[in-house]
C-alpha cells in the first residue's frame, strides 16, 4: 500500500504550529452589476492554522460565502478579486489556471451547503469520490476505489460498500453530507472550507455531522474555515471567530472572547438575536436550564459539571416546574384532533401515503401550540389538514367548532371554515403573488369574503399595515421590492385580515436571517397577545417554539410522541426522542455547549436508535 493511503494523524512535513496554513491579506471581492463594481467583501485579513477551526459568521449578504469562494477562484466571471491569499506561503491569487486546479480538491477542499444538489445526481457517490482521487494522484482504479471506501468508512457511514454504489438521491440528507465530506477529505487537504455544512439538515442530523467534523479535525489536523450564520454551530466547533457584516470583518477573536465579551455592537446584536432554547417563555417561569433538565430526566452523570452543581441545577429546575402553574384552558376548543390520520391521496399508480396516524391535539382560544419535529415527521401535514387542504382519513377534526373530517374537498363547509382560519407560509417570496401589489394581497381575503370593499377595504388594509409595522405607502409596492422580513410581515397581515380565530403558521421564520427572525417573532408575539387568536405554530426550530408556545407537541414519524406545557417539555422531557431532540440543539455558548455535547453523547449511548 502506498503512503498516500495512510490516514495517520501525523502529517510528516506539517507546517509549524504557529505558521498559518492560510493567510489572507487585504482580500476584496467585487461583483460587476450593470457596469459598476459592487463590493461583496472589503479588505479582509485573517489566517488559519493547522488543526484550527476559524468560523466566519454573518447574515445573508455579509460576503462570507463570496470571500471564501474567492480563495479558490470559484466565483462567477463577473467578479473581481484583489489582495493576497497565501496557502502555506504559496500565493493563490493571480496564479495560473493549472496551478489553482492542482490546489483545488487536493490542498484545499470544499464542503457545500446542500448535498443533494452539490453532488452530481447521475453518478454514484463512489464514482465521484474515485474521480477526485484519480484526478490528483496516479493510482489504479482499484486503489482509488479502496481509498474511496476508506473515506466513506472514515465519515462513519454505516455501510460504506453500499454508499459507494448509491446515487445521491438514494441516501438520506445526513448520509449525503457525509459522502460530500468523504469526497472533500479524499486527498488529505491542508485546508477545508465548509460553507454552511449543516444548514440544510435536521437538528439531530446536524449534531451528528458536527460531531463527525470535530472528530475529523482531531484526526486529520487540517485547518478548517467554517462559514455559517448559526451561532450554535459556531459555539460547537469554532476555535476562533470572525464576524462579518456588509463585506467587512467587524470583529475577530477566540470563541470565548466573542461569546463572553463581544466588543462590536453588531456582534452583540447578533448574539442577542439568536433564539436560545430555554430563554423564552412567560415572565414567571424564567430561563430553563435544559441541560440540567435533560440530565435529570435521563439520569445522566456528567463529568463536565461538578456533581453538587448539577444537583443544585436539577433541584432548581424541579422547583420551577412545580411552581409553573399551567393556565386553565377556557372556552370551546378552536382546533380539536381526535385519533386523526391524514393521508396524501393516491395519484395514478402511486398509492396513498399515510403521513399522520393517531394524532390527538387540542388548542383552546388564545393558546399557542408549537408543533415541532424533523423533516418528514408529519408536522406540516397536520397544519395543512387543519385548513382543509388535505383530507382526514380517520378520526375527527374539529376546526372552530365545525367537524371537517368528512367535508367535501373545496366544498361549501371548508369555504366557510376558512374564513375563521388564517395561514402564514414558510417562504414569503413564493407565497405572495408577484404580480399583485401587497395592498391587494392583504385585501384579497376580505374582498372575497365580502366583508369590505371600496374605501372601507382601503381603511382595513391600512390598519393591517399599521399592525404589522409596515409604512402605509408600501401598499402599492410589489413583493420583489420588499425584503424577506417585510414580505413575511405582509404574509402575517394577510393571514390576519379576516380576524381569524385560529392561525396556522408553517415555519414562518425559517427562511429569514436571525436578526430579522427575532423581529418578526417579536411582532407575531405582540399581535397574538393583542388580538388573542389561537395558533398552531409548525416549526423545526425548538428555540422558536420556546419563545412563543404555551404548549409543545413533539412529532416523530407521523405520530405525536409527547405533548405538554412548555415547562413540562423543556424541564422534564420523558420521551427519549424528545430528549435527543432537545440535546441536539446547539447552544450559542461554547462552555454550555460542551456540557450539552457530553449529555447528548450519553443519551445516544443509552438509546442509539
Amino acid at each position, binding site marked *: 500500500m502506498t503512503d498516500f493511503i495512510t490516514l495517520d494523524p501525523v502529517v510528516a512535513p506539517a507546517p509549524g504550529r504557529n505558521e498559518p496554513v492560510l493567510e489572507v491579506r487585504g482580500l476584496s471581492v467585487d461583483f460587476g452589476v450593470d457596469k459598476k463594481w459592487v463590493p461583496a467583501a472589503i479588505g479582509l485579513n485573517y489566517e488559519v492554522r493547522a488543526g484550527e477551526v476559524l468560523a466566519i459568521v454573518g447574515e445573508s449578504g455579509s460576503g462570507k460565502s463570496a470571500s471564501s469562494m474567492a480563495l479558490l477562484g*470559484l466565483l462567477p466571471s463577473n467578479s473581481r478579486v484583489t489582495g493576497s491569499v497565501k496557502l502555506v506561503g504559496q500565493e493563490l491569487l493571480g496564479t495560473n489556471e493549472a496551478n489553482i486546479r492542482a490546489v483545488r480538491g487536493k490542498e484545499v477542499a*470544499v464542503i457545500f451547503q446542500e448535498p443533494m*444538489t452539490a453532488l452530481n445526481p*447521475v453518478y454514484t457517490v463512489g464514482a465521484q469520490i474515485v474521480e477526485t482521487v484519480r484526478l490528483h494522484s496516479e493510482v489504479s482504479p482499484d486503489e482509488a476505489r479502496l481509498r474511496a471506501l476508506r473515506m466513506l468508512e472514515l465519515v462513519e457511514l454505516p455501510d460504506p460498500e453500499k454508499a459507494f454504489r448509491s*446515487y445521491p*438521491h438514494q441516501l438520506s440528507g445526513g448520509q449525503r453530507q457525509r459522502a460530500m465530506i468523504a469526497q472533500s477529505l479524499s486527498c488529505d487537504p491542508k485546508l477545508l472550507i465548509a460553507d454552511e455544512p449543516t444548514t440544510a439538515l435536521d437538528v439531530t442530523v446536524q449534531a451528528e455531522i458536527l460531531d463527525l467534523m470535530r472528530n475529523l479535525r482531531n484526526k486529520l489536523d487540517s485547518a478548517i474555515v467554517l462559514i455559517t450564520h448559526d451561532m450554535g454551530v459556531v459555539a460547537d466547533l469554532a476555535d476562533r471567530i470572525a464576524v462579518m457584516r456588509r463585506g467587512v470583518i467587524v470583529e475577530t477573536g477566540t470563541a470565548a472572547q466573542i461569546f463572553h465579551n463581544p466588543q462590536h455592537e453588531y456582534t452583540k446584536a447578533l448574539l442577542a438575536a439568536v433564539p436560545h432554547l430555554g430563554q423564552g417563555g412567560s415572565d414567571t417561569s424564567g430561563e430553563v436550564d435544559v441541560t440540567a433538565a435533560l440530565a435529570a430526566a435521563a439520569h445522566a452523570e456528567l463529568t463536565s459539571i461538578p456533581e453538587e452543581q448539577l444537583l443544585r441545577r436539577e433541584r432548581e429546575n424541579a422547583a420551577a416546574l412545580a411552581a409553573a402553574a399551567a393556565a386553565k384552558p377556557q372556552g370551546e376548543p378552536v382546533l380539536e384532533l381526535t385519533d386523526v390520520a391524514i393521508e396524501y391521496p393516491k395519484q395514478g399508480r402511486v398509492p396513498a401515503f399515510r403521513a399522520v396516524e393517531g394524532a390527538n391535539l387540542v388548542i383552546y382560544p388564545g393558546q399557542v401550540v408549537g408543533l415541532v419535529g424533523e423533516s418528514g415527521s408529519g408536522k406540516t401535514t397536520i397544519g395543512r389538514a387543519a385548513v382543509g387542504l388535505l383530507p382526514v382519513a380517520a378520526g375527527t377534526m374539529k376546526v372552530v367548532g365545525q367537524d371537517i373530517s368528512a367535508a367535501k374537498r373545496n366544498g361549501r363547509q371548508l369555504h366557510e371554515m376558512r374564513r375563521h382560519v388564517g395561514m402564514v407560509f414558510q417562504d414569503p417570496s413564493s407565497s405572495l403573488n408577484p404580480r399583485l401589489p401587497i395592498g391587494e394581497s392583504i385585501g384579497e381575503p376580505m374582498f372575497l369574503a365580502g366583508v369590505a370593499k371600496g374605501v372601507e377595504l382601503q381603511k382595513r388594509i391600512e390598519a393591517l399595515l399599521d399592525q404589522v409595522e409596515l409604512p402605509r405607502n408600501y401598499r402599492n409596492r410589489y413583493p420583489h421590492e420588499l425584503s424577506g422580513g417585510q414580505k413575511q410581515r405582509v404574509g402575517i397581515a394577510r393571514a390576519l385580515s379576516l380576524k381569524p380565530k385560529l392561525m396556522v403558521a408553517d415555519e414562518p421564520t425559517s427562511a429569514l436571517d436571525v436578526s430579522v427572525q427575532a423581529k418578526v417573532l417579536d411582532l407575531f408575539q405582540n399581535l397574538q397577545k393583542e388580538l388573542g387568536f389561537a395558533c398552531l405554530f409548525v416549526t423545526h426550530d425548538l428555540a422558536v417554539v420556546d419563545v412563543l408556545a404555551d404548549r409543545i407537541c413533539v412529532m416523530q414519524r407521523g405520530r405525536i410522541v409527547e405533548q405538554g406545557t412548555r415547562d413540562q417539555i423543556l424541564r422534564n422531557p420523558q420521551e427519549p426522542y424528545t430528549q435527543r431532540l432537545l440535546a441536539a440543539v446547539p447552544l450559542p455558548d461554547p462552555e454550555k455547549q460542551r456540557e450539552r455535547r457530553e449529555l447528548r453523547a450519553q443519551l445516544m449511548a443509552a438509546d442509539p436508535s
Partner: protein
Amino acid sequence: MIQFILRRLLQVIPVFLGTTLLVYFMVFALPGDPIRALFGDRPPSEAVIAQLRQQYNLDEPFWVQYGLFLKNLFTFNLGVDFTGQPIADTLARVFPVTAMLAIEALIIQGVFGIAFGLVAGLRKGGIFDSSVLVLSLVVIAIPTFVLGFALQLLIGVQLGWAKPTVGSNVTWGSLILPAVVLGMVSFAYVLRLTRASVIENMNADYVRTATAKGLARRQVVTTHVLRNSLIPVITYLGASLGALMGGAIVTEAIFNVPGVGQKLYQAILRSEGPTVVAIVSVLVLVFVLANLLVDLLYAWLDPRIRYEN
C-alpha cells in the same frame, strides 16, 4: 424493468386498434369510387367492376371490411393493392428507404444540434451564441418546402455538389440533401433545447463542486454537464423520430425519394384503404417503439428515474 417494458408493449394493442380503425374509416368515407377511378376515362363493363368490388370486399359494410382486414393482418396476409401488387412487397420496398432518410436526418440533427447547442450554451451571450440563435429562428420560420426547393436549386442545380433528385437508386450519400432538409427544423429545436439545458446545468451546484475538486473546465463539461444536459434533448430526439418517418411526405416529393411518403400520398389519392392502413400501422408501431426506447434511454441517463412499482 421487464414489467415496465411488457406493460408498455401491451399498450400498443389499444393504440394500434384505435389508429387503424380511425384511418380505415377515413379512407372508407372518402368520396368517389376507387374502382372507377382506377380505370380513368375508359370505364370497363359493369360485370368487371362488380367482380373487382367483390375481390376487394368493397361491397361489404364497413365493419365487415375492417374485420376482414384485421383477420388478414393477423394471418400475416396483407393482401394486394388495386394494381395487383402484394402490399407486403410495397412495404418492404418503401420503408427501408424512409428509414434510411429518417435515421440520416436524426443523426444530422442530433450531432449538429447538440454540438452547436453545447458551444452556444457555454459561450452564452457571445457572438456565436447570438448568431446561432437568430439563424435557428430563421430556420424554424421557413416552411420545409421553401427550404427544400431552395437547397435543391442552390446546392443540387447551381453548385452541383449533390444530385438534385434521388430517383430509384437510393444510397446513403444520395439522401444527404433531403435528410438535411428533413432534419433542419428539428435541428433548430435540438440546438435551442441543448443550449438552454447546458446554461441551466452550468449554474448547478454540482458543477461548482466539480470545479472545486480540481477538474478542468473541459472535464467538467464532458463528464458532468453534458450527460445532465442531454436528458431533455434525448426525449425530444426520440419523439422526433416518429415525426421524421411520417412527416417526410413533402421532402420525399421534392427530392423524388421512393419512400413511405410518396407511396402513402398515391394510396390516399386512389382511396386504397388496405395500403393506407398498412402503412399507417407500421408508422404507429415505429412511433410507439421509438417512445419506449426514449423512456429506456431516459432511465439509463438519469438514475433518479426508475420504472419499478
